[in-house]
């Protein structure tokens, strides 16, 4: 029992450490990537002992600034809720990572096999979507507790957006759940390792391409970043966190970055085979053209973890690129896209998937 506890604590610590650092690094990536896209250089002046390292210290400078700034709570605001809201936002996007498998099973002699997943939940998909949905409470509470009409409007926009996109998001995932026949993310990843016709990996992108497009769109809306940054609209339409300052404001930003990573890991897990590498099995690579390369368990785990990280980072990169490519949607366009575009497509996708699976006799 203590053994299990220790491994779980280590795993959880590792995940939180990795994710928070990645989120912090996102500030740097965001600055530099947008700079390169727009033919600029990007923040590069912060230095430690004369080392600039391409401006990577700006994240630290940001954190220092956030922590030392005055924390203003507006007069008449609900102090408790105003303080709790940013914590809600960060908490709910952070706990999602518990259910995400980031590597294959690690075998250490003398120990139980360790699943590289903090919590092995049977209904992990449901858990994740529950947590993502709860995340919007942070936003609504922030808007409500600020005692600022603009903030409240921002919170309402966020709510409307979340509701219209969560539906499409959930229904898009149903297709994936049907194909793999489980809600356990670990199982879903395992089953994506199978091959279709002996050569094509059964990744979600192959079996559910439409669901992938719907999922990505809805998930981008979920992250509340451009082109779906209606709830925030920093420069123009004043979002739910106008009345926040200091690290509370920073936490909303952190939650944004965390959600981007959540979405990236989810897209990886559900559609890009999680930690799978094509033709890699627990005992080594088995290429369809006849090569066999045996590998040890530790190498298997390492490769799996690296594969998962690479895919997640690639998704983060693409999401960032989309964020700096597309302009913001208008509110009615957003609703149109959510209810008249993605929702029907997702439903049709589920129906078509069901028909195909019935015809091919794969149900069950």
């Amino acid at each position, binding site marked *: 029992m203590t053994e299990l506890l220790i491994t779980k604590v280590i795993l959880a610590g590792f995940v939180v450490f990795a994710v928070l650092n990645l989120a912090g690094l996102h500030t740097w990536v965001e600055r530099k*990537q947008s*700079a*390169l*896209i*727009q*033919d*600029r*250089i990007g923040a590069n002046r912060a230095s430690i002992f004369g080392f600039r390292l391409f401006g990577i210290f700006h994240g630290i400078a940001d954190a220092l600034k956030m922590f030392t700034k005055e924390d203003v709570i507006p007069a008449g605001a609900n102090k408790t809720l105003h303080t709790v809201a940013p914590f809600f936002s960060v908490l709910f996007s952070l706990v999602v990572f518990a259910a995400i498998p980031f590597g294959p099973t690690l075998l250490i002699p003398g120990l139980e096999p360790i699943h590289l997943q903090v919590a092995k939940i049977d209904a992990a998909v449901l858990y994740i979507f529950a947590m993502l949905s709860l995340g919007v409470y942070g936003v609504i509470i922030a808007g409500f507790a600020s005692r600022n009409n603009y903030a409240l409007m921002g919170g309402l926009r966020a709510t409307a957006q979340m509701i219209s996109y969560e539906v499409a998001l959930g229904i898009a995932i149903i297709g994936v759940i049907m194909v793999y026949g489980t809600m356990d993310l670990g199982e879903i990843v395992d089953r994506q390792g199978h091959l279709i016709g002996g050569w094509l990996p059964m990744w979600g992108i192959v079996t559910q391409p439409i669901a992938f*497009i719907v999922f990505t769109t809805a998930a981008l809306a979920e992250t509340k970043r451009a082109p779906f940054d209606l709830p925030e609209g920093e420069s123009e339409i004043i979002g739910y966190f106008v009345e926040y300052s200091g690290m509370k404001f920073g936490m909303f930003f952190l939650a944004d970055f965390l959600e981007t990573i959540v979405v990236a890991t989810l897209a990886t897990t559900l559609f890009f085979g999680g930690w799978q590498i094509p033709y890699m099995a627990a005992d080594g690579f088995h290429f369809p053209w006849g090569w066999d390369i045996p590998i040890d368990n530790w190498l298997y785990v390492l490769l799996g973890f690296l594969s998962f990280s690479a895919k997640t980072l690639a998704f983060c990169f693409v999401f960032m*690129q*989309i964020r*700096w*490519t*597309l302009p913001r949607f208008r509110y009615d366009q957003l609703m149109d896209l959510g209810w008249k575009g993605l929702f029907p497509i997702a439903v049709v996708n589920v129906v078509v998937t069901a028909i195909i699976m019935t015809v091919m006799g794969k149900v069950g």
Partner: protein
Amino acid sequence: MATKVVRRPELTFWEKLYLPQIYCGLKITFRHFFKNLGLHIAHRLGRLKHLRASITYQYPEELRPLMSRYRSRHRLTLRDDKTPRCVGCMLCETVCPAKCITIVPGEHPDPHVEKYPIRFDIDLGICVYCGYCVEVCPEDAIRMDTGILDLAAYSREAMRLDIHELMDPELRKPVNDCSLTFPHTCKVHGGDMKGSWDGIAKTAD
């Protein structure tokens, strides 16, 4: 009344689908991203320096290239003997719309030159950088081609350039010692007349 029919462009089916348009947008941003990333890496390796990776100039280290006709800080051009070319005709002081030029002419030992400035001040705090002084000068004695743009000072007094700074564009404030040998007044000497024409080669004789 004539009416003008404005034809709003209708979106085609592919544009309405939006996804191809996202692809087009991403193509542009990805092209910029990888081009600039490649150029930045090439610059680090000392290659392709002639291609700019960004339109940003890293200001204090890297100055923007200026047009040759750009009007920057003034300077007084010099004769071969390092005395000012200015003959103290007062045309620039007269034409100056901002009245920022103050000249005190003195007698030059060379009868062909007749006059020279004992004192030549330009108050950059009120200069409008119109360049009339440069255009009006018959002797090509004042130019605005130093390329100096960072004209900031902590006091109005420090914005006043005297003959030292105008004759030597490299000289930055504060000026503590006077290297001019011909008779002149300057801030270093507290407004007193200092120097003599001895030892300075006379031209045109």
